């Protein structure tokens, strides 16, 4: 979950494919193999499509090598403490040495892990209460603007930071907040180096980068509302605040609910690049109030590399939590909105 765009970010622009439904369909169709003639009909279809079967090969191969082969690596999480890559290669270590479950137990007594979970949740909950409503508010305000050209121009300006890399975004703000050379830093001092400011700034930076892009989805949902509703509301004597509250917001409620569930499903990920870059800005001094789950796993698995079995166990545990959150979110949206999460 570290690399690439999140599905949510992309769904903001395009139409999201109904993966949740696909999962449900797939689950039900697995049961069909008991039906008489099932294998025969499948074989007939294999023959029918035999010429385009090989289209699947490259994608299947890449997935096998770079997604499924690493899953075998889960075995490392069950290796004893004598796992040591300086003594032999990966296969040697896998076949020699003891097996144990204690690595998973060690996660729960690890202080840094609980600190990381706490900080991750704090940052994400603040984001949920600030960044998420901010996108909706901006979208409503933009659509309330009478001049549609102006509102589009503003929307496009607000999306600019989304196309900058995190290194640039943090570079810009570090420059502005630099007490020696920055415009704002002369007033505020170097707040980026202060522990107390880390979380507020993390939330602020994600809002600065993402709010404009996030509001596109809501903006197009508002644009899709039938204009005659507004006309009749005006005839009934509703003012704009009432129209906003009783018409616009309820109409885009499905979109809001969907994005809310999607946000909550991604609760354990903070955005690795952002947090890690912010941490490195403080001359590499990692304090406990800045450590989040993504960066903690990265730190012990790639930077330290001292306890590979424990690092693997933590990675697998984190993946399992993320999976559980997404499946719960998918179940909620499929039940209540008849639509998959992704």
């Amino acid at each position: 979950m570290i690399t690439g765009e999140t599905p949510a970010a992309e769904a903001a622009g395009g139409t999201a494919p109904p993966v949740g439904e696909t999962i449900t369909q797939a689950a039900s169709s697995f049961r069909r193999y008991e039906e008489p003639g099932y294998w025969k009909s499948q074989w007939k279809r294999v023959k029918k499509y035999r010429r385009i079967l090989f289209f699947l090969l490259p994608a299947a191969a890449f997935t096998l090598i770079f997604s499924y082969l690493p899953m075998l690596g889960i075995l490392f999480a069950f290796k004893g403490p004598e796992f040591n890559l300086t003594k032999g290669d990966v296969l040697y270590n896998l076949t020699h040495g003891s097996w144990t479950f204690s690595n998973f137990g060690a996660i729960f007594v690890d202080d840094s892990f609980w600190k990381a979970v706490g900080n991750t949740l704090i940052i994400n909950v603040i984001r949920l209460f600030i960044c998420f409503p901010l996108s909706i508010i901006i979208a409503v305000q933009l659509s309330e603007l009478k001049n549609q050209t102006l509102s589009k121009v503003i929307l496009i300006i607000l999306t600019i930071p989304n196309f900058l890399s995190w290194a640039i975004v943090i570079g810009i703000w570090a420059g502005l907040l630099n007490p020696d050379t920055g415009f704002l830093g002369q007033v505020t001092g170097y707040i980026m180096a202060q522990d107390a400011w880390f979380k507020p700034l993390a939330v602020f930076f994600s809002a600065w980068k993402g709010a404009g892009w996030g509001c596109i989805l809501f903006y197009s949902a508002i644009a899709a509302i039938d204009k005659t509703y507004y006309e009749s509301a005006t005839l009934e004597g509703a003012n704009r605040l009432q129209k906003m509250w009783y018409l616009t917001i309820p109409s885009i409620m499905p979109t809001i609910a969907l994005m809310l569930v999607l946000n909550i499903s991604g609760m354990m990920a903070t955005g690795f690049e952002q947090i890690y870059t912010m941490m490195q800005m403080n001359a590499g001094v990692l304090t406990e109030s800045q450590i989040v789950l993504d960066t903690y796993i990265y730190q012990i698995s790639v930077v330290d590399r001292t306890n590979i079995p424990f690092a693997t166990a933590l990675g697998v545990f984190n993946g399992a939590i993320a999976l559980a959150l997404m499946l719960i979110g998918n179940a909620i949206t499929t039940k209540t909105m008849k639509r998959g999460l992704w």
Partner: protein
Amino acid sequence: MEENMIPEQSPAVPPRKEGRKLRLFQKNPNKIRESKVDIFLNIVNIVFLFLGVVIIVFPLLNYFSLAFNNGNSNLKVVFYPVDPSLKSFEYVLAGDGALDFWRAFGNSVLLTVVVTIGSNLVEAMAAYPLSKRDFPFKSGILMYFIITMLFSAGIVPIYLLMSMFGLLDSIWSVILISISNVTHLLYFKTFFEGIPSDIEEAAKLDGATDLQLFFRIIVPMSLPIIGSCCFFTIVGCWNGYGSALMFISQSAKGKAAQPLAYYLYLMLQSDTLNKNDPWLMANSKNVEAAAMVASIIPILLMYPYVVKYIKSGLQLGSVKG
């Protein structure tokens, strides 16, 4: 979309002329008079949005004018260069910093081109058979791909796999890990399902092979979705450095494999700059800003597409309703 929110005019009034200039308050003689609440809301609205634009634009202008400024007068810069100088750009693009910058630039170009073409080609090809309604074992194959989207084994196994392949400290580790993109596979599949099967049948009657059918008919018809997927891949590759942080160390070998975003990230910590040069010490912020400005030019070149994309996305929304 294009019309106003409150066009309460009687049919007798001739239609307003569509003005080209921006008008915040449009004059309309037959308009229902706005209540005080509405006028107040309008003002709050405009002030809020104006504030938003300032918060976005001011840091950009301030920082980017540093790139064109001389290091000694950085404190006076507000939103334009006070002491214009192109020396920082000269340093980054043609001077002592040029080797590092262009090497990183080249790596990023390689990464972006290979991943954009490779990933989207591979995923579109896989999506084509899966878009057939009666493709055998369709759900099973789909599950095979979707599972990788939902669950990953974490960093350690992927890191060790790359080390077994001998791809650590090489840009190819980042390239190979980015090829597989199930989200795009699903976008393509959904789009291909919407293409009428009559067209394919007609092409088959004319003697087209399956490869010809895919590359000559399906791909040209799917250019909108392929275009936006390619766009997101390009932006993601150009700006991302999460995988580079994982696989590429700061050793001499790793230095040659850094993509541009990773190079900028290292530059932020200023340990890539030579501390013995007094000019460089005074201009370190400006050099940093110049490198960042130079790095976003390729993305800026794509901005007309972004504008088109956002507009078409909005039209899509309004058609759906």
